C-alpha cells in the first residue's frame, strides 16, 4: 500500500481572514475509503478543494500520489484533475446536452480514443443505472438520477481517486444508501474514495475511517 493523499501541516486562510483549515495532518492510502465529517462551515469543502487544486493551501504540503500539489504549476493542474473524479455539492451538470454527452466530457478532455469512448460511457451509465436514459436531457431527471449522472461523469475516465462533496445532500434515505453502495463498489475495485458528509445516518454502521473536522481542525 502506498500513500495516495497526504496532508502535512496544511492551513488555509482566505483573503477575507476566515481561517478555514488549521494545521491539518493526515494520510490516506491507496484503495482506502474515508469519510470527512463536520458541521457546515467546518472546512470539509475546503479540504476537498485543496486536493483537486481548486484552492491552494496557505501553508503546508499536499501530496497526491507522490506529487506535491502545493507547488504545482498552473499548466500541470489539468493533469492532476484527470486523476481525480469529482462529485460536486452543486452537481455542475450541463443542461444544454443529454446524459450521454455530459458523461462524454471527461473523455473528450483527456483525448480518449474514439472507438473506446461510447463503450466507456455506457459502462459508466450502467453502473449507476442510467443506461436507458442516455438520450435524456438532465432537466427531466429526478434529484437522485442527477446525482447518479454526476457519479457516472466522475468515474467514466477511471480515476484513481474519487472525491464527493455531500453526495447524498438532498436525497431521501433509500436513495442515499443506494449511492453509498455505489461508492463502496468503486472502492472495492481499488479506487480511493473520499466523501464529505454531515449526514450522520450514513456513518452509523460504517467500518471506514472518519476524519472529523471541527472549526478547521481535525478532532479524531
Amino acid at each position, binding site marked *: 500500500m502506498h500513500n495516495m493523499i497526504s496532508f502535512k501541516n496544511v492551513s488555509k486562510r482566505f483573503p477575507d481572514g476566515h481561517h478555514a483549515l488549521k494545521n491539518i495532518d493526515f494520510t490516506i492510502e491507496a484503495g482506502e475509503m474515508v469519510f470527512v465529517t463536520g458541521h457546515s462551515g467546518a472546512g470539509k469543502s475546503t479540504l476537498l478543494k485543496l486536493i*483537486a487544486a*481548486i484552492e491552494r493551501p496557505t501553508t503546508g504540503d499536499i501530496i497526491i500520489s507522490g506529487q506535491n500539489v502545493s507547488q504545482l504549476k498552473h*499548466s500541470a493542474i*489539468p*493533469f*492532476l*484533475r*484527470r486523476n481525480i473524479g*469529482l462529485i*460536486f455539492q452543486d452537481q*455542475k451538470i*450541463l443542461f*444544454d446536452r443529454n446524459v450521454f454527452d455530459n458523461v462524454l*466530457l*471527461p473523455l*473528450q*478532455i*483527456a*483525448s*480518449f*480514443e*474514439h472507438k473506446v469512448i461510447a463503450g466507456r460511457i455506457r459502462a459508466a451509465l450502467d453502473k449507476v443505472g442510467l443506461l436507458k436514459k442516455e438520450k435524456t436531457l438532465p432537466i427531466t431527471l429526478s434529484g437522485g438520477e442527477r446525482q447518479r449522472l454526476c457519479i457516472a*461523469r466522475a468515474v467514466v475516465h477511471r480515476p484513481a481517486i474519487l472525491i464527493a462533496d455531500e453526495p447524498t445532500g438532498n436525497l431521501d434515505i433509500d436513495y442515499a444508501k443506494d449511492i453509498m453502495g455505489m461508492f463502496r463498489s468503486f472502492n472495492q475495485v481499488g479506487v480511493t474514495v473520499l466523501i464529505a458528509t454531515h449526514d450522520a445516518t450514513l456513518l452509523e454502521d460504517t467500518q471506514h475511517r472518519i476524519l472529523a473536522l471541527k472549526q478547521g481542525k481535525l478532532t479524531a
Partner: protein
Amino acid sequence: MIQVWLIQHWQTFILTLKRLVLAPITSLLGILVMGIAFSLPVGAYMLLKNLQSLSGQIADSPQLSLYLKLNANQTAVEAVRQRLQQHERVVRFQFIPKDVALLQLQQGSEWTDMVGDLEHNPLPDAFVVNTQNASSEVLEQLQTSMQAWSEIEYVQFDSDWAKRLDALLKLGRLVVLILGTILSVALIAVMFNTIRLQILTKREEIEVTKLIGATDSFIQRPFLYFGAIQGFAGGVMAWLIIALIIQITNDELVTLTQLYTIDFHLQHLSSEDSLSLLVFSAWLGWLGARLSVVSHLWQIEPK
C-alpha cells in the same frame, strides 16, 4: 497520439461549423459585417492595382522629345547624336530632321492647308529618345540635364500626367493602408466582443471542463476556430462583394474609357492576392478571438 490530436481538432472544427449553422442569422450578420468592412480596403486595393496596370500600359517606355535650336547645323546634330549614343539611360533614339517633320505635318489631315501656306519650315530638328523605365523624378532629372546641352532648345517630357498618376497612386496606397489598418482594428474589436459574449454564455461549461481537467488550450480551441472560420467567411464575403461591384460597373467603365481610346476594364484580385485576403481575414478573426479568450478565460476559475 497525433491521430487523437488530429481527431480532436477535426471535431472542434465540425462543432464550430455546427454552431455557426445553428445560429444562421447571427453568423450571417457577423460574416456580413466582416465582409463589408473588408470590402472597403480590398476594393480600394483592387482599384489601385487596376490603375497601376493602366499606367504601366501607357508609360511602359518613357519618351523624351529633344528639339534642337532652329539654327542648328549638321555638326550640332552629330554632337547630340554622339552624346545620346554614349548616354547610359538612353535605350534607343530616332532622329527626325525638320524636313521630315514638316512632311509628316503636311500629311496630317486638318493642318494641310495651313502648313501649305508657310513660306519656310518653322520646325526644328528633333530627336525622339526612349529611356529606361524609371521613376518620374529620374526622368525629370534627365530632362533638366539634357536641357542644359548647348544645341538643345527645349526638351519636352510629358511628365505631368505621369506625375499626377504617380502621386495619385501613392496617395491611393496610403489610403488603402490607413483604411485597412483602421478596419482591421475594428474587426478585431468586433470579434473580441463576439467571443466575450460567447464566453459569458458558456461560463458554466468552461468552469466544469476546467474542473474535470481541461487544459487552457482545449478550452480556447473552439473559440479560436470560431474566430478563424468567421474571419475566413468574412474574407470570402468581401471577395464576392467586390466581384459583384466589378460585374456591375465594368460595362459602364468600358464605355467611358473607350471615349479616351483606352482599353480599360476592372479585373478582380489575382489568385495570390485573393489567397492573401482569405488568409489575412482568417488570421484577423483568430487574433480577435485569441485576445478575447486570453483576457477573459482566466477570470473563470472554478470556486
